[in-house]
């Protein structure tokens, strides 16, 4: 049986010596697709996925204005998404034909489909109001972003291979470390390497907004603005918090102490990058990501407890300022932020009562119109307002579906599935928590990353059945499907 052959490398094994050996072992049990898996492949699509992840972590997407115009939106990310979809479509048309059929778990697209359907229904129902208030242009842009998100989710889910999950998990962790280092440097020097780099590289084809960085503002100007490659500190905090589980899981399943130490250091760097933004969310999101990991695999995480305690003691001794998020809680402007958040709840009631089911239309919330719209520091409130109760349920389903789908492989012994699935699930939880802390869909990085890891969840829970009767290891409970 295929699954039995993929004996655990999830639990560290003294006999194993790294990823190559795991892959080889998986190959021995019938996982013939391993040798064509990213990064050892010439298939363009996984390379585009890797590039897209690099864009999410390193490029200030929202600050780039390309000189080429598309009909709806000329944002930098849309060109990348268009390239991914086009490559996928061309590959489908001229492909030689896969020898593997993927059996995806039931309902993998349910959350996304429901959300898209409710979003469009909310626009159709409120079309009079939307056009009357001149909100159609904004709605168009938001729908374009939604379409891009759907495209990324669909193409990644349909194309990602099980054997590619772990390499992509490594890539996410490495990119997050780079982002965290850049963010720490931004705080220390006031120089945003991501914005400066994008401006230098893209100068011939695009203009880049100046970085919003304010490393040391005057006391009366509020908190520092450390944004990394994003437009807002909470956005960079979110992507770092979502990437943290990947570094932690890689540390937990590392084969030798040296490698484990390196991944533990990577995890510490990511946490430092999140904390240095001096936002409470910099503490909350990584904490919930770790809590999710602990709840899903407590024993696995306990293995890293000595490293965690040592890192904490070292951080307190060397750089006590790194924990400025704690001090933030007592600041006057921080208290004002809390009051602003709580004031959102009564303010949303009239809109909720006037459109309880489908809201006032997807994409109609315009934070720049301060006379009519509030800036909700909570995506759930924003969704309730825009797409109503049904839309809120669909949005929750969008976040929960990957967790539901991946539950069968969270404890899988397969080294190809178990660790990436666990990290991706915790990453989805981190996204769900971050969505409660700010208007997360207004900043593209975190939603793109979420849908990528959601696709990883689906992929991890999928069985790959070779039409040539060759099969990759599949999770428990599915192995009988391929036995025939």
């Amino acid at each position, binding site marked *: 049986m295929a699954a039995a052959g993929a004996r655990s490398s999830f639990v560290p094994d003294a006999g194993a010596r790294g990823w190559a050996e795991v892959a080889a072992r998986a190959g021995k049990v019938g996982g013939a697709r391993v040798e064509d898996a990213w990064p050892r492949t010439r298939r363009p699509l996984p390379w585009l996925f890797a590039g897209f992840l690099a864009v999410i972590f390193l490029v200030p997407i929202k600050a780039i204005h390309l000189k080429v115009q598309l009909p709806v939106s000329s944002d930098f990310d849309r060109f990348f998404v268009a390239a991914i979809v086009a490559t*996928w*479509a061309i590959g*489908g048309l001229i*492909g030689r*034909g*896969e020898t593997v*059929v*993927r*059996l*995806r778990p*039931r*309902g993998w*697209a349910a959350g996304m*489909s429901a959300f*898209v*359907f409710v979003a*469009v229904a909310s*626009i*159709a129902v409120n*079309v*009079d*109001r939307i*056009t*009357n*208030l*001149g909100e*159609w*242009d904004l709605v*168009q842009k938001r*729908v374009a972003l939604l379409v891009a998100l759907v495209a990324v989710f669909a193409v990644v889910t*349909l194309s990602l291979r099980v054997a590619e999950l772990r390499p992509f998990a490594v890539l996410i962790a490495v990119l997050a470390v780079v982002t965290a280092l850049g963010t720490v440097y931004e705080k220390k020097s006031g120089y945003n390497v991501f914005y400066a780099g994008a401006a230098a590289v893209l100068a011939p084809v695009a203009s880049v907004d100046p970085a919003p960085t304010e490393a040391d503002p005057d006391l009366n100007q509020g908190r520092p603005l450390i944004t990394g490659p994003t437009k807002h500190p909470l956005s960079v905090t979110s992507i770092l918090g979502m990437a943290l589980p990947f570094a932690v899981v890689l540390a937990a399943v590392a084969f030798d102490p040296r490698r484990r130490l390196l991944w533990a250091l990577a995890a510490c760097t990511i946490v430092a990058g999140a904390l240095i933004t001096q936002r409470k969310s910099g503490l909350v999101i990584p904490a919930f990501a770790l809590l999710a990991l602990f709840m899903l695999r407590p024993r696995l995480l306990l293995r890293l407890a000595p490293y965690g305690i040592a890192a904490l003691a070292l951080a307190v001794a060397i750089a006590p300022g790194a924990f400025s998020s704690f001090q933030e809680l007592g600041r006057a402007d921080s208290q*004002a932020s809390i009051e*602003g958040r709580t*004031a959102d709840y*009564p*303010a*949303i*009631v*009239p*809109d909720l009562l*006037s459109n309880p089911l489908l809201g006032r239309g997807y994409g109609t919330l315009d934070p720049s119109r*301060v*006379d*009519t*719209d*509030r*800036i909700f520091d909570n995506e759930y409130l924003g969704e309730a307002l825009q797409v109503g109760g049904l839309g809120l349920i669909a949005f929750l389903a969008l976040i929960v579906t990957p967790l539901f789908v991946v539950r069968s492989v969270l404890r899988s012994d397969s080294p190809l599935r178990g660790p990436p699935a666990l990290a991706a699930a915790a990453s989805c939880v981190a996204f769900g928590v971050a969505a409660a802390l700010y208007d997360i869909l207004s900043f593209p990085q975190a939603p793109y990353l979420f849908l990528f890891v959601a696709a990883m969840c689906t992929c991890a829970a999928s069985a790959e*059945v070779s*039409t040539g009767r060759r099969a990759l290891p599949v999770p428990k409970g599915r192995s*009988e*499907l*391929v036995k*025939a």
Partner: protein
Amino acid sequence: MEGAQILKILWQRRLLVAVGALVALVAALLSVNRVELFPPSLQSRTNVFATASTQILVDTRRSAFADLSNETDPLETRASVFARFLTSPVAIALIARQAGLPFDAIEAQGPYELNLPPFQQEPTAEQRSTQIIGEGALYRLRFENNPELPIVSVFAQAPTRGAAIELAAAAPAALRAYVERIQRRQHTPVARQVEIRKLGHATGGVVNEGAGRQIAVLVFVVVFAAWCMLLVPAHTIAQGWRGERAGHDANGSSGGANGRGGREVLLRAGRGRQGLG
């Protein structure tokens, strides 16, 4: 490959796909038209609007701006007061009469304190309730005033360009009529009278001409895609069902010889669930 499989399934179910296209077409039509049952008719929704704008200068009979010795501060204060007054029911009634529109068809907003931090400008629940009531109005006015200038900017919105221009032009006329009535009643000396001047004619145009078409296309695409997405798992379920029945018939027991039913039959046939289930 999966895209090709999905297309193959949809081609096998082309009659149902055609029905889906019809359903999507109806949904698209309904998104830009309103159905009236008595008598049966299809009325186009108002998906297009036009805007127009003009400016009101608060001045004196002998223009304060032509004479450097005149202070403009009192005029700035009055401009601020007039901008607020123009959103009041009294002013809206005057504007409605001037533009030949019903009073309740007009919604007026502004001016807003532009220099306050955003969280102080954001509407409270009470303010929002009032705004929601006025959101359905087809004729909309918005007044803006810079506290350092004796000017009120008027922005009008209406279903047609002509109506928008007429509405924008009605605001200064209504204000002038109101102020002159007070001056007459109070016998204000000419030298101390405020003069309401319109800074040029109102100009405007249609803003979102193609919105209706775009909305219809969006609704059609999503409804049709959703329909097709549902067809794929429905096809798989139907096949599984048939497979199970075939197994049942062949073996005389439910679920076939191995007890795992249609899914296994599908897998043996090298097919299986094809992605969107």
